[in-house]
């Protein structure tokens, strides 16, 4: 009953990418049209120039055409893997994104792994010792974590671990070798994990507390099952469902964190690309990034929903029971 639907379900969800991509790109194009003075103003960014120059630029970037045509051209381009050229550097947007994509993925993955691997066990542990000092310590950490903006945490960690203790490099993404890259990305990755980890701890703890109060836990204990089995199979497995629900927020939080962490640590990723693009109103780059981020989010949510099905037999593909 369950296995059969999965292929069709994934395809249906991937098909959802199309309207979402259309929606996002349309939103960005509409945003463009709202700029005082239009895209050319953004392109010039305050520099004075002759009318002839403006005209040449318009033609070069296709801005002389009506908005709807521009949109159409862009869409056709996207289908061919062409996201246009940067206003600033004239580089292909697709190339800039390709170059920086892996760094951001690695950074997000490090953050996700740390947040889950540390957050879930600590949240569980705290729930098992509700009200004790252990519990209060974990709750304190989780509140501190979720209250710490990544840019502040980044500065604090730079000061402590890079300058004072000199464990990690201060700046940059390394020389490109695999090990050097990891060495450079470890500290930023940890900073990325701080706020999401707080969230994971908090939700895991609340979900575990909820489970611990349930009859099925008490009944499992009354039947003499080992405490390990009770906590893992009866408690944590059920508690993972609300944690998965929060995973969407987790992905979004990590993505937002990337922007700040990359800019403080001077890492050439998508986040720093976005910052430089918005600072210079580089519309083609912003459009390209919005597209990538949209796809990213759709895929992340697909993974979450598949996770539900893995954990919860009550999930029937295509419909998650409202609980």
């Amino acid at each position, binding site marked *: 009953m369950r296995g059969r639907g999965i292929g069709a379900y994934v395809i249906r969800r991937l098909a959802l990418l199309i309207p979402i991509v259309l929606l996002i790109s349309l939103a960005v194009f509409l*945003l*463009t049209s*709202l*700029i*005082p003075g239009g895209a050319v103003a*953004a392109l010039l960014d305050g520099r004075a120039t002759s009318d002839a120059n403006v005209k040449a630029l318009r033609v070069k970037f296709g801005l002389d055409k009506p908005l709807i045509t521009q949109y159409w051209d862009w869409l056709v381009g996207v289908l061919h893997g062409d996201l246009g050229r940067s206003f600033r550097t004239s580089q292909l947007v697709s190339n800039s994104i390709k170059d920086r994509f892996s760094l951001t993925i690695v950074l997000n993955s490090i953050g996700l792994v740390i947040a889950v691997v540390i957050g879930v066990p600590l949240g569980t542990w705290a729930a098992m010792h509700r009200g004790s000092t252990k519990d*209060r310590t974990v*709750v*304190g950490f989780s*509140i*501190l974590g*979720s*209250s*710490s*903006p*990544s*840019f*502040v945490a980044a*500065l*604090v960690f*730079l*000061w402590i671990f890079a*300058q004072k203790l000199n464990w990690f490099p201060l700046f940059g993404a390394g020389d490109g070798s695999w090990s050097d890259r990891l060495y450079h990305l470890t500290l930023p990755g940890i900073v990325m994990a701080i706020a999401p980890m707080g969230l994971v701890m*908090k939700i895991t703890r*609340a979900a575990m*507390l*909820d489970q611990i*109060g349930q009859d099925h836990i008490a009944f499992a204990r009354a039947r003499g099952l080992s405490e390990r089995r009770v906590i893992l199979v009866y408690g944590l497995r059920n508690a993972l469902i609300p944690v998965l629900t929060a995973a*969407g*927020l987790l992905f*979004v939080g990590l*993505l*937002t964190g990337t*922007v*700040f962490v990359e*800019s*403080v640590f001077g890492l050439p990723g998508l986040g720093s690309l*976005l*910052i430089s693009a*918005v*600072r210079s*109103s580089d*519309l083609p780059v*912003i459009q390209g990034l*919005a597209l990538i*981020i949209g796809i990213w*989010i759709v895929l992340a*949510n697909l993974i979450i929903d598949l996770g539900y099905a893995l954990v919860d037999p009550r999930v029937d593909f295509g419909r998650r029971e409202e609980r």
Partner: protein
Amino acid sequence: MTVATITTAQPTLRIRKRRTRPPLSVALGIGFFLSIVVVSLIGRSWAGSPTAQSLRETSKPPSGAHWLGTDALGRDIVARVLAGTNTAILGPLLIAASGLILSSLLGIAAAYLGGLTDTVIMRWVDFMLALPGLLVAIVVVSVLGGGYAMAIVLLSIFNVQGDIRIVRGAAIEQKPLPYIEALRSLGIKRRRIMFRHILPNVAPILVANFAIDFALALVALAGLSFLGLGSEPGTPEWGAILAENQSILFSNPAASLAPGVVIILLAVSVNLVGDWIYDRYSAPERLTSGS
């Protein structure tokens, strides 16, 4: 008065009211928040001008005259941080307040009215929750301009969905309860049921949301100003001050990190309060014996 209302009213065994008084940490949180409010009201005059430059005293370490030293332009760090208090709490207050109002309206309406209203509201909520609100704010504020006010509007728009979902969840638990059904059959008007009966019973959730929203908005707005968006350069905003003084991180870490530490402290203190209320409400200590 206690905030949690779920009690076991059996005349049997009640060890509720156990934690009616907030723990020390929450009391400290409330205290810190209030002191920040007081500082924002009176602090400016007391700490001196945030823009007064003294070119002979640039990048000075902490001293008696400048407790945390001065920045690269010779401005007193303490004065700048204190001057930023106003904007720091005003924006989050507005964002949290809009979240409170909209979520109690839309969350309760979605839960109680159900049907199409619920579907429409929740589809929108799900869609918006999937978007990175702060990134959208970064893009829009930088492309369109509009500064701090625009940032507040955008963050308000993206903040409210989480609240709606939580309030709806709490209200949907109330809806099938006999007391609500009895009110329906007694002919009490829908609006009254929603806002005079359901609303007070989910009020603790609203307060908790308010606190948590405040902290999130504080961090988000500081993030925008850290990136140089949302305000004029040179304005004493905590995020902007932090960015200005990034360069003196290694020479005068205390001064460089001060605004960041204040952000964290304020967020922690508000989160402590919100978390405490939420914890009490969603997991009340209940103990019944017998059937």
